[in-house]
């Protein structure tokens, strides 16, 4: 019988010289929504100046923040670090009302690396991948599935996928990886 809740064991999914895809270890993920006026207060609480241009990121230690919308940020950190951030933000809630939701279990992350990484992404993503600056990211679509794409290097990407769509997207990346390797 097909398992309805895949295990998502971290490890390599596609390996080779052209492109390698790996499922990353579970991370702590927080979705933050707040108004413009309260950005400085939350920045101080989190310990990172929240980026305000959509697509830009900021990093401090394990905590990585990406601006996804005019009032929306996604925070990624170590799986054990979410409670610290939640507490820090709760402490300033009265001063700066906001919404902070732990969405750690919602998504899985795959890392895509290698000279064929951009080619592999283009099979599902309609964006011009070359226009995403290194060290930035975006929320986009991968073959019908909403996903957050982080560009860490010229040939290094991370893709956050909602876990219910992940078996499909992983299958797509594996098929694409095999095709690129065969070329």
């Amino acid at each position, binding site marked *: 019988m097909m398992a309805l809740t895949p295990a998502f064991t971290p490890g390599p999914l596609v390996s080779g010289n052209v492109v390698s895809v790996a499922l990353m270890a579970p991370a702590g993920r927080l979705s933050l929504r707040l108004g413009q006026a309260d950005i400085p207060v939350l920045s101080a609480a989190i310990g990172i100046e929240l980026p305000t241009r*959509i697509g830009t990121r900021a990093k401090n230690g394990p905590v990585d923040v990406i601006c*996804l919308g*005019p009032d929306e940020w996604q925070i990624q950190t170590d799986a054990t670090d979410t409670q610290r951030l939640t507490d820090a933000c709760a402490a300033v809630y009265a001063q700066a009302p906001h919404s902070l939701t732990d969405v750690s279990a919602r998504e899985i992350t795959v890392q895509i690396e290698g000279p064929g990484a951009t080619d592999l992404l283009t099979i599902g993503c*309609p*964006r011009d991948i070359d226009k995403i600056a290194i060290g930035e990211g*975006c*929320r*986009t*679509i991968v073959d019908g599935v*909403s996903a957050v794409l982080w560009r860490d290097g010229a040939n290094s990407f991370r893709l956050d996928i909602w876990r219910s769509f992940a078996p499909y997207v992983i299958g797509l990346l594996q098929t694409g990886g095999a095709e690129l390797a065969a070329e």
Partner: protein
Amino acid sequence: MLLVHCPYCEQTLPELEFTYAGEAHVARPDAATPVSDEEWRNFLFIRNNVKGPHYERWRHFHGCGRYFNAVRDTVSDRFLITYKVGETRPELSDLLEKSK
């Protein structure tokens, strides 16, 4: 594929990230005063169905998630402008002049 300029992301991005959201500038009748059935029907159902430049709403669904307004020619599918929600409705004559 159409390329749509998102006024919030300030980037021109593929249509697949966007969803269409109907005619723009359809004002809800003020419920503080009595609203006639006819006014309410017009608000809910009556649309212009323009052939040519059409003021319409779009949403950057797989992106920043924002709704914004656009003027698109329904014949040629050409976008004349996209602008943020709350900004004043641009005059069509100015847009047509600019696009020449």
